[in-house]
């Protein structure tokens, strides 16, 4: 079973828009695009295996309590049923370490719950010969419960104040005292609801055991991390687990970890001695793993009459599950966006009966920005200063928290470029001052940021006998463009057309890579491929110069030029050969080199840890610099006051992600983030039935994400400059940045339009009517 290979050339347009497209920084179209559009791309669970059996999950219908009994007899007797798994009928697994690699307790792990802590928890599973048989039999499993009262959400009286997370506390100066004596004071509470990643491709897998070797076809943002978890659960060596994930239909943070449904499927496969496929239903994707935690923040700002901030006091809480811990770092933007001499941020986490929340595009920064970027807008109105001007007056010239220089911070440039394009200068400041017929028009601005997370990856680059280049890495492409930018990196570095590069990803047998999360993968993997390709090129040139059989040998040059797949001398005197001709002249069928971004002298143990945990990720404030991406969003809304409906009619965003490896793909990612931000601002909310502790809008008809009709033309402007403190080739994070700040920009625009400040997302019509 090999990964689907893609020839870059299939998708190259060859028109002027692709001029220079092959190189890093070129606008090469997605090389995986044609395969996806034509259906040729085979996704993980589309593997056809002999003897495949189908598993379907049975979920708890109560939010809190214990399973009293499970009657499987009727289900077992149903046609085609092979096995019904329950907490009592499943092989024993071991608890795996968390994603930091923290050694786990020496305790068994059961992915089916006896103690129910949320509605929708997996309590049983049915495996049958066909999917339809499994679905039908799953409905016949009779589960009875002892039910206990649930804590349904943050507003539940039983929820309490939660657990203080000391590691989240950030303080300098005397924030309370400075606030008390500030001439201008604002204080407000901002809430965000449960939100869901809602990827097009639901979670699922095929698990297949051959002896004690496990192969898992599963969409994954992190093959090596997930392989480690499977290996630990089943107590087999890491090398015995192979993860295959050639394409991913969207993850947004939700596909980075091996989850309990994976343990169920792999257990079933082992128990039956057959490959098992398990795919979640859409409703199950709302409870089978966590979306973004609901959050509450209070932001108080003390300032002088000119709007200069003297103090920020920030308190946040997010929900987590009864037995899991998720901290959504709510002070992450609060502490760095504006210069303030006094600062205090603290955070609690509150346990409720929900699935443990998880990572969703810009965890932490996203809700954090909703708080501070709304609050600074409130301050602007309080002191009567333009919302853009107040941001410039409080511009942080260095990282206020780390007290280090920014590696690069093109935020001022972003404000300037965005304001210019948007026409901000024409804005009339008073709320309700701009109107078009029945529609009130509002213009809002907000900034966003995301840290440059750095980790490690390795890659193999091969120059093959026909002169083509092959790249291998266990990193992944979930639509963000890894296939494409790695082809560009190898093409430029070796000196071949991108057409002649084949990139293979998504197989844990390949050289390893850390998680594709936190917008780190592009920076890491372009670095690794650059290094591997450089050393492959060195070998090629070395051979050409020193091998006595090489036509270049007589030249006695100390370097040669490789360009467009051909080798020649720098001055053009002497032979001019294709790479294939050279390799054949020296009798080689390929050249191979490995490159990585690991510190020198790393041990095998270090490497394992680096690729399978996030324990060794490099802090963004390591050394002398603080490294972040930045952006400024300028957004126009139209509010029909009779109806309370908000429509986003114009977006101009200027963004600093450093050097862009491929502007076309970066722009798409930014736009995707902005679209998701529009959904967050206006539509998205997991609605809980408070009597049952259950999400009732657990499908894509009722959980609203934006449609095309909700999205206006979006203009994005790159204001970044290469940042070599952030990555080998100068890029900073792209994928998560652009969602940060969209919701507050919209809320600020709604205030400008209507004079109503909405501090609870989403901004639905009943809040404005």
């Amino acid at each position: 079973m090999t990964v689907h290979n893609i020839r870059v050339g299939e998708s190259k347009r060859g028109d002027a828009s692709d001029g220079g497209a092959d190189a890093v920084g070129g606008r090469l179209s997605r090389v995986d695009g044609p395969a996806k559009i034509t259906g040729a791309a085979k996704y993980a669970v589309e593997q056809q295996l002999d003897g495949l059996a189908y598993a379907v999950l049975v979920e708890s219908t109560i939010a809190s309590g214990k399973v009293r009994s499970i009657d499987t007899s009727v289900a077992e007797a149903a046609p085609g049923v092979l096995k019904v798994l329950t907490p009592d009928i499943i092989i024993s697994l071991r608890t795996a370490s968390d994603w930091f690699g923290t050694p786990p307790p020496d305790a068994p792990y059961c992915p089916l719950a006896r103690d129910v802590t949320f509605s929708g928890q997996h309590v049983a599973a049915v495996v049958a010969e066909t999917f339809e048989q499994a679905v039908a039999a799953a409905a016949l499993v009779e589960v009875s419960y002892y039910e206990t009262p649930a804590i349904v959400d943050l507003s539940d009286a039983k929820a309490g104040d939660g657990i203080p997370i000391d590691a989240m506390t950030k303080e300098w100066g005397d924030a309370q005292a400075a606030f008390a004596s500030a001439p201008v004071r604002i204080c407000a509470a901002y809430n965000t609801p449960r939100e869901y990643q809602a990827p097009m491709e639901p979670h699922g897998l095929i698990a297949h055991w051959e002896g004690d070797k496990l192969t898992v076809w599963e969409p994954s943002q992190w093959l090596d991390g997930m392989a480690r978890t499977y290996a630990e659960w089943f107590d087999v060596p890491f090398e015995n687990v192979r993860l295959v994930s050639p394409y991913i239909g969207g993850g947004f943070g939700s596909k980075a970890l091996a989850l309990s449904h994976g343990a169920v499927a792999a257990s079933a496969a082992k128990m039956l001695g057959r490959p098992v496929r398990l795919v979640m239903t859409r409703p199950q994707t709302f409870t089978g793993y966590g979306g973004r935690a609901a959050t509450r923040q209070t932001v108080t700002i003390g300032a002088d009459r000119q709007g200069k901030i003297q103090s920020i006091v920030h308190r946040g809480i997010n929900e987590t599950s009864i037995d899991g811990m998720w901290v959504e770092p709510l002070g992450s933007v609060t502490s760095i966006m504006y210069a303030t001499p006094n600062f205090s941020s603290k955070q609690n986490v509150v346990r409720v009966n929900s699935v443990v929340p998880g990572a969703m595009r810009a965890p932490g920064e996203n809700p954090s920005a909703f708080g501070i970027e709304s609050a600074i807008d409130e301050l602007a109105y309080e002191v009567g200063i333009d919302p853009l001007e107040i941001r410039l007056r409080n511009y942080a010239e260095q990282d206020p928290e780390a007290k280090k220089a920014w590696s690069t911070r093109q935020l001022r440039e972003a404000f300037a470029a965005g304001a210019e394009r948007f026409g901000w200068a024409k804005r009339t400041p008073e709320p309700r001052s701009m109107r078009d017929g029945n529609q009130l028009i509002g213009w809002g601005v907000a900034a966003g940021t995301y840290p440059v997370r750095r980790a490690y990856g390795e890659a193999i680059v091969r120059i093959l006998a026909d002169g083509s280049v092959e790249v291998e890495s266990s990193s992944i492409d979930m639509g963000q463009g890894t296939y494409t930018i790695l082809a560009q990196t190898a093409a430029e570095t070796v000196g071949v057309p991108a057409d002649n590069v084949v990139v293979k990803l998504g197989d844990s047998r390949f050289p390893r890579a850390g998680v594709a999360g936190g917008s780190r993968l592009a920076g890491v993997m372009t670095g690794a491929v650059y290094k591997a390709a450089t050393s492959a090129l060195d070998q090629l040139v070395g051979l050409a110069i020193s091998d006595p059989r090489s036509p270049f040998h007589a030249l006695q040059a100390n370097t040669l030029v490789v360009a467009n797949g051909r080798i020649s001398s720098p001055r053009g005197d002497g032979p001019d050969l294709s790479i294939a001709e050279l390799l054949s002249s020296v009798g080689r069928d390929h050249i191979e080199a490995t490159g990585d971004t690991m510190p020198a002298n790393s041990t095998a143990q270090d490497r394992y840890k680096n690729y399978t945990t996030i324990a060794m990720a490099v802090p963004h404030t390591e050394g002398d610099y603080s490294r972040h991406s930045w952006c400024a969003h300028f957004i126009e809304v139209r509010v029909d006051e009779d109806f309370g409906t908000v429509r986003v009619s114009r977006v101009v965003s200027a963004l600093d992600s450093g050097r862009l490896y491929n502007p076309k793909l970066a722009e798409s990612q930014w736009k995707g983030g902005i679209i998701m931000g529009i959904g967050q601002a206006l539509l998205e909310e997991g609605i809980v039935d408070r009597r049952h502790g259950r999400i009732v809008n657990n499908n894509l008809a009722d959980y609203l994400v934006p449609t095309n009709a909700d999205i206006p033309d979006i203009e994005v402007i790159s204001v970044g400059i290469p940042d070599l403190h952030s990555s080998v080739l100068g890029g900073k994070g792209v994928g998560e940045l652009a969602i940060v700040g969209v919701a507050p920009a919209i809320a600020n625009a709604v205030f400008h339009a209507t004079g109503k400040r909405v501090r609870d997302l989403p901004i639905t019509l009943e809040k404005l009517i």
Partner: protein
Amino acid sequence: MRDFSYLRAGSVEAARQAAALPGAMLLAGGTTLIDLAKCGVAEPDSLVDITHLKGLDKVEVSERGATIGALAKMGHVADHADIKSRFPAVSEALWQAASAQIRNMATIGGNLMQRTRCPYFRDPSNFPACNKREPGSGCSALGGVTRGHAVLGTSEACIAMYPGDLAAALVAFDAIVHLGERRVPVDDFFLVPGTTPEREHAIEPGEMITAIEIPHSAAARRSTYLKIRDRQSYEFAAASAAVGIEFEADGRTIRDLRVALGGVATKPWRARAVEEALKGKVLGPDAVRAASLLAVEGAVDHGANHYKIELAPRVVARAILKMGETA
């Protein structure tokens, strides 16, 4: 596995006979039925596929009015030139319903028969109590998440909203449902829940919708469908209004007015009180706004759906004023 039989009906008569058997259901575009089967709400023993019946997909506009075959696709009717010009509200209601893909699959007969979006109705394994599904089992929505539920025509047994757009336009213009030979005015075809929420339509076992007839009227010709919703597309109405208007020769005095609401009631809701209050009056913003409040007379909210009581009259007023402007 739940087995069911599948029959492709060769004639209307055969379809009606097959559908009269217990556990049988008609299958048209399937966009409601298959969905409900997947959530375990519809559990047919046999499906009678009517999509191959000949002659039921026609749209004809004659001197008397429009006759739309039960198997005409939503997209086709929405795009029909005579429907657009003679019954704009009907075309607009269809255009704004569901998505392009669904409109290309779904039929007019199936559209009328679509079921409520009440989340409790659609999730039997988690919410066994639902009077509409299981008469006498109770109503899980009462005391639960009610943002999308009805404020008009509700009963203690059921507060589920009828979600269709087309039916509101049909009710406004006195359309008639053809059940073979039997004719039922659309307003009588849909039933309020009362104590029998499981019974939603005046259709008997073995009956089938064969066509919809919409009589011509000046009001239908000058009509619109205004739909307000949380997102701009692919979303049911938070509140909607089908409005048609006819003026006296002076171009200001209202001779005939039709108003029906969608998204707020247990059935497509004709707002006759608004019509009566404005007939004979000169069209003007204040009068229209005041009269529009009558649209929600007797409305009862259940907390989260209170906004519909505010919203619906504003939608009605906007739609009437918009029709007045085009005078």
